């Protein structure tokens, strides 16, 4: 029988913090500026420049650490990690090795009904590097230092994951926590969240870990899942051929669905880490920790528990709605305004989800106000507009955040409840469709539907279909 293998995975996740300025200087972190416009002597490593730490970086890092159940390091400091590469103008990266800001935490993940803790080894603050663009024309590389010095938090997990599903559940969990905290937008495609996967395989039941490789360049959940599968198979193949796995960094090429070796992994001491003498220690008091805790918003797990108690909506709906802090806030505010959480949930779960999918948008990008959604629900509930008109108006709210009251008024979409006008139209429809009338009277229920349809059409959808149905039956009796 073929040997059974178990995959062992640990993750290093880099998150770009949502500060306005870089970690050690007052340059903007805004994405997309012309090359090198957001640079100064500090973030380009000029001799004699002095880095000064951005307080907000420490606060975000503490918030993430606390939300991931970590111990906050009371005296922490920065170290220099030395290496030479054109994206690193100082020839060292300012990072934290000896006393990282947070340690010994965990997050809980759920996959297929089972819950599990993924332990967090440590979390540290560091600076990002510049960006290299390959210039095809004269076969050189162009360096842009706008990203140099953008603050990052690196979150290092223990090797606690065993499958791609668990890895993705862990990343989703981290992303949700960090987005709720407002500490980063965590977009994999844009690189504000990056994951390096450390993976090894071992025979099922073995106690020792196998030799691991580190995979970089994974910029979507799908690429991560494919890379894990590919690397697992590559390592198992090597082992079953009696070969050895070499400890190295590999780069995943998602187009080719294959990885290739980048460089042999340098040992920690090769980076010749030492404390950065330009930066003074950070001492974190109880009072500071308490303040960060107090400012922490309600996180997703707490929200879910509260929704269960406060709102009569299905668990599944609550999970979808709270997956985005923005959507959860829309839900809560619209519910408070109209007092109908179940209706609000329906609009979010059905029409909003449909339009998000159709327009390929993220829930965070929803731009309509809770006031307008609540207003629409009022109009639909008190019969001012019928359900098909409500859907039409909702699309306008979704795209242009229109005021539903003004919009229905302006476009004459209110349901016509004027009986006289309805009767006039009905008479006309009956006169124009004698066959349908005969059919209905002869016992064909379906024929009534055709008459209702004709009436709705004649009234441009503004009639109340229930009312039309009722009146028609009365007349044709």
């Amino acid at each position, binding site marked *: 029988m073929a040997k059974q293998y178990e995959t062992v995975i640990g993750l290093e996740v880099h998150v770009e913090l949502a*500060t*306005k*300025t870089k970690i050690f*200087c*007052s*340059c*903007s972190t805004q994405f997309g500026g*012309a*090359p*090198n*416009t*957001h*640079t*100064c*002597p500090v973030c*380009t490593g*000029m001799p004699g420049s002095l880095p*000064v*730490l*951005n*307080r*907000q970086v*420490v606060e975000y890092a503490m918030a993430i650490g606390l939300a991931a159940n970590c111990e906050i390091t009371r005296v922490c*400091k920065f170290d220099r990690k030395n290496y*030479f*590469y*054109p*994206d690193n103008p100082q020839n060292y990266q300012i990072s934290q090795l000896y006393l990282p800001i947070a340690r010994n935490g965990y997050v809980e993940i759920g996959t297929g009904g089972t819950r599990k803790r993924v332990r967090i080894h440590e979390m540290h603050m560091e600076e990002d590097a510049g960006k*290299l*663009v*390959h*210039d095809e024309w004269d*076969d*050189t*590389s*162009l*360096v*842009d*230092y706008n990203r140099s010095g953008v603050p990052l938090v690196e979150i290092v997990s223990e090797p606690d994951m065993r499958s791609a599903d668990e890895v993705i559940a862990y990343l989703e969990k981290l992303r949700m926590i960090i987005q709720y905290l407002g500490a980063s937008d965590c977009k994999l495609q844009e690189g504000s969240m990056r994951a390096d996967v450390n993976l090894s395989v071992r025979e099922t039941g073995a106690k020792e870990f196998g030799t691991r490789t580190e995979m970089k360049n994974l910029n979507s959940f799908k690429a991560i899942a494919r890379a894990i599968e590919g690397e697992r198979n590559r390592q198992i193949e090597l082992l079953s051929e009696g070969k050895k796995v070499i400890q190295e960094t590999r780069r995943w090429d998602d187009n080719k669905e294959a990885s290739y070796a*980048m460089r042999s992994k340098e040992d920690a001491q*090769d980076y*010749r880490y030492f*404390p950065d*003498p330009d930066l*003074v*220690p*950070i*001492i974190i008091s109880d009072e500071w920790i308490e303040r960060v805790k107090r400012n922490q918003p309600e996180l997703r797990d707490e929200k879910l528990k509260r929704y269960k108690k406060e709102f009569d909506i299905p668990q599944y709906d609550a999970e979808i709605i709270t997956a985005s802090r923005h959507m959860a806030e829309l839900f809560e505010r619209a519910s408070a305004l109209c007092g109908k959480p179940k209706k609000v949930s329906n609009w979010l779960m059905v029409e909003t989800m449909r339009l998000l999918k159709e327009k390929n948008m993220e829930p965070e990008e929803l731009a309509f106000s809770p006031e307008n959604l609540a207003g629409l629900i009022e109009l639909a509930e008190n019969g001012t507009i019928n359900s098909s008109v409500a859907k039409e108006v909702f699309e306008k709210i979704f795209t242009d955040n229109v005021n539903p009251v003004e919009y229905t008024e302006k476009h004459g979409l209110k349901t016509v409840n004027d009986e006289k006008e309805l009767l006039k139209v009905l008479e006309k429809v009956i006169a124009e469709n004698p066959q349908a009338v005969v059919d209905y009277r002869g016992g064909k229920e379906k024929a009534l539907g055709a008459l209702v349809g004709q009436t709705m059409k004649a009234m441009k959808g503004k009639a109340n279909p229930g009312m039309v149905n009722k009146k028609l039956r009365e007349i044709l009796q």
Partner: protein
Amino acid sequence: MANKISDEVIEYVSILAKLELTEQEKKDAKADMEKMLDYIDTLNELDTDGIEPVSHVFPVHNVFRDDIVLNGDGSGDTLANAPLEKDNSFKVPKTIG
């Protein structure tokens, strides 16, 4: 001299430092590094049990700035340091990564 630095160590350190050394320079570097290690040996003779490591000599901590953008477009000064320049960027030999 208690510390012996092997030729392999010199080779390795020069790779990490991206330096190409002549035979004479390797010999000199070896002697210098051995001297440094001997000095560390002298320091190691001290009893430092229970003494906190010092990373900063001044009794100063928590020096922060507020998260406010103060710097404008710095590309002019930054690129003045570029030996080669193209498209507002530093132009360097082709680098993979």
